[in-house]
């Protein structure tokens, strides 16, 4: 049964157990709030969400009042606005007004609501209470007790989501402060989320602090490539450089969180990039043009037809994997294709998945073989050593991890050509003979299929750095150098092709996948 109520003159049907703030937000009416968070328990301590309910003498907090039939709620009446102003004035009484040096400025709940509802002149004549500033709470978290409005979102996050209980409230009255319990540090694998949910500048990220003002940042919707979960994220970037990643809400995948490993994964977009096609002559690398590099690769592939192996990490998008599978099937004569996901990592029951690749499932859906473990690479090593494989084309693979430094050097000696393709200079890349730069997930469109079978979209945030190309364009150019005439104009066109050829992906398009992704069945 749903409850029928009126908010600001709008008739609304709400869930039976919904609170007024939830019902209002669902109907597109925004009620100012600090302590309420859709994924945390109700605290009801900030009093910012006051609304007027007909027939009740006082203003009530909408985050902790359940809806009822025939309730009539006002969120913008003069009494409510007066109430909010009063609450804001209380919250700001001891506030240091650090905005010029505060990293939150520009995305601060206090600034925003002050401009909307406050706009008073301070009437506070007494001295402000001073508290600790620049407190080191954990490896990436800095705390400012003066800016904190004690909404306890961070405390509840550590209690309810990570269940690690590092944070608590200490002391009383106007000296109350957030702190870690003795001997503890705010160092859980999801600690960065406390910075995101802190509505003010009390918790800031050491990594992001002072790097840039938030109003310079642009935002692009994307997917974290850190593991098979595929958390939905925003890439915050300026001038072709990524400054931070923020979680993007998707209740089917990551709620409103991301892990810290994923959060700092953005550094690979800015640093250690392979930017130009290169050829190795002896020990020295020489920059060459794409035409030269592709001519060399296609010539070797042709010369050693039948003795080619593709070693692929499932880092590429579905579009990449689809063209790679076509390349292997239709253009090269029966190469050995090995899908190598690398060593498994951390896994827990919140977000982290042991498979540290974003698209292991999608790669198989697109026609690449099932993944192999590091031990199973032995047969590939044997094939190279016995001369059955003369060309190894490694794509996004950490070669050092896959083979070990000694074996890798030996393999490179046996091979006629070792091609490395990747966005970053992964360990072991320098053993290759040719290096082809592909672009990172931030510089391209595409889709990943996460471990649940949800296809999700990447969006290009800025142009590729250097001469990097999306991997599918490299495959297309290679195929064309080998006599094909592929002419996909964009990743979107490849997905349209996938939608007609791969049964599980039938009918998919970028528009249909949208911002929150689309579940697909398994390919038979």
């Amino acid at each position: 049964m749903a409850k029928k109520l009126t908010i600001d003159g709008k008739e609304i049907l709400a869930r039976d157990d919904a609170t007024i703030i939830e019902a209002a937000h669902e109907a597109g009416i925004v009620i100012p709030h600090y302590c309420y968070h859709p994924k945390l328990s109700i605290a009801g301590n900030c009093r910012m969400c006051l609304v007027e309910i007909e027939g009740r003498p006082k203003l009530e907090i909408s985050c902790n009042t359940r809806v009822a039939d025939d309730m009539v709620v006002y969120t913008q009446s003069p009494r409510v606005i007066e109430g909010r102003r009063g609450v804001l004035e209380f919250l700001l009484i001891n506030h240091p007004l650090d905005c010029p040096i505060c990293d939150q400025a520009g995305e601060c709940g206090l600034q925003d609501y002050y401009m909307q509802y406050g706009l008073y002149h301070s009437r506070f004549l007494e001295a402000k209470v001073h508290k600790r500033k620049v407190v080191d709470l954990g490896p990436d978290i800095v705390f400012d007790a003066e800016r904190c409005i004690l909404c306890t979102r961070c405390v509840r996050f550590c209690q309810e989501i990570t269940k690690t209980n590092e944070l608590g409230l200490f002391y009383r009255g106007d000296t109350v402060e957030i702190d870690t319990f003795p001997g503890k540090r705010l160092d859980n694998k999801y600690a960065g989320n406390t910075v995101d949910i802190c509505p003010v500048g009390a918790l800031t990220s050491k990594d992001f602090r002072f790097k840039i003002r938030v109003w310079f940042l642009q935002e692009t919707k994307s997917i974290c490539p850190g593991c098979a979960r595929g958390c939905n994220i925003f890439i915050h970037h300026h001038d072709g450089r990524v400054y931070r990643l923020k979680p993007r809400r998707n209740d089917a995948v990551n709620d409103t969180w991301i892990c810290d490993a994923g959060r700092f994964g953005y550094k690979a977009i800015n640093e250690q990039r392979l930017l130009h096609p290169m050829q190795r002559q002896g020990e020295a690398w020489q920059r060459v043009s794409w035409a030269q590099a592709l001519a060399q690769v296609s010539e070797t592939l042709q010369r050693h037809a039948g003795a080619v192996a593709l070693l692929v990490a499932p880092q590429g998008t579905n579009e990449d994997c689809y063209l790679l599978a076509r390349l292997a099937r239709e253009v090269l004569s029966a190469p050995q294709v090995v899908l190598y996901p690398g060593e498994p990592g951390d896994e827990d029951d919140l977000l982290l998945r042991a498979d540290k690749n974003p698209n292991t499932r999608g790669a198989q859906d697109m026609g690449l073989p099932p993944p192999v473990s590091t031990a199973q690479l032995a047969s590939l090593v044997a094939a190279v050593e016995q001369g059955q494989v003369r060309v190894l084309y490694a794509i996004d693979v950490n070669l050092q991890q896959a083979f070990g430094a000694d074996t890798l050097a030996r393999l490179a000696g046996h091979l006629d050509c070792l091609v490395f393709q990747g966005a970053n200079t992964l360990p072991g890349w320098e053993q290759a003979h040719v290096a082809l730069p592909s672009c990172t997930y931030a510089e391209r469109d595409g889709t990943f299929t996460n471990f649940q079978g949800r296809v999700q979209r990447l969006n290009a945030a800025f142009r590729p750095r250097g001469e990097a190309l999306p991997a599918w364009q490299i495959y297309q150019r290679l195929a064309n150098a080998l006599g094909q005439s592929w002419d996909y104009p964009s990743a979107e066109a490849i997905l349209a092709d996938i939608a007609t050829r791969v049964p599980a992906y039938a009918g998919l398009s970028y528009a249909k996948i949208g911002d929150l992704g689309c579940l697909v069945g398994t390919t038979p």
Partner: protein
Amino acid sequence: MERLTFWQKLYLPEILRGLAVTTRHFFANLLGQRHTVTQQYPEQPTRVSPRYRGRHRLMRKEDGSPRCTACMLCATACPALCIHIEAAEHEDPTVEKYPAVFTIDELRCVFCGLCVEACPCDAIRMDTGVFALAAYKREHFLYPRNLLLGDEEPRHIAEGRAPLD
């Protein structure tokens, strides 16, 4: 528009009238030197009004450290995008943030004064009265923090080198 009369269309009488004014001033100044408005710049220093927007300078706190907190409001307000600030963590937690790098590209600046208006702590001013910012190379117009703070005289221009940071 009013039509020109025949007399005006001739132009010549008006030109002669203008020449007469010039000639009158010429002889008045030559003989009496009473109405000269020309300044003998650069032999005599020129006078600018106190509100004249000249080259920027950065102000100091009482303890001598830069007053700027690296809030970037000037850089945000600047229409020419010529202010480059890199903020850093100050060891004193009550200061917290300071500009490790503060460079103004005076060649790109349009001298609008918006940076001065934007600054919440009066850390940047344009009251130096300096307007002659000639140099031989574009790089020499990049004024770093120490020049703006007045730690060093802008001798680099005469010496034909880039300013030292």
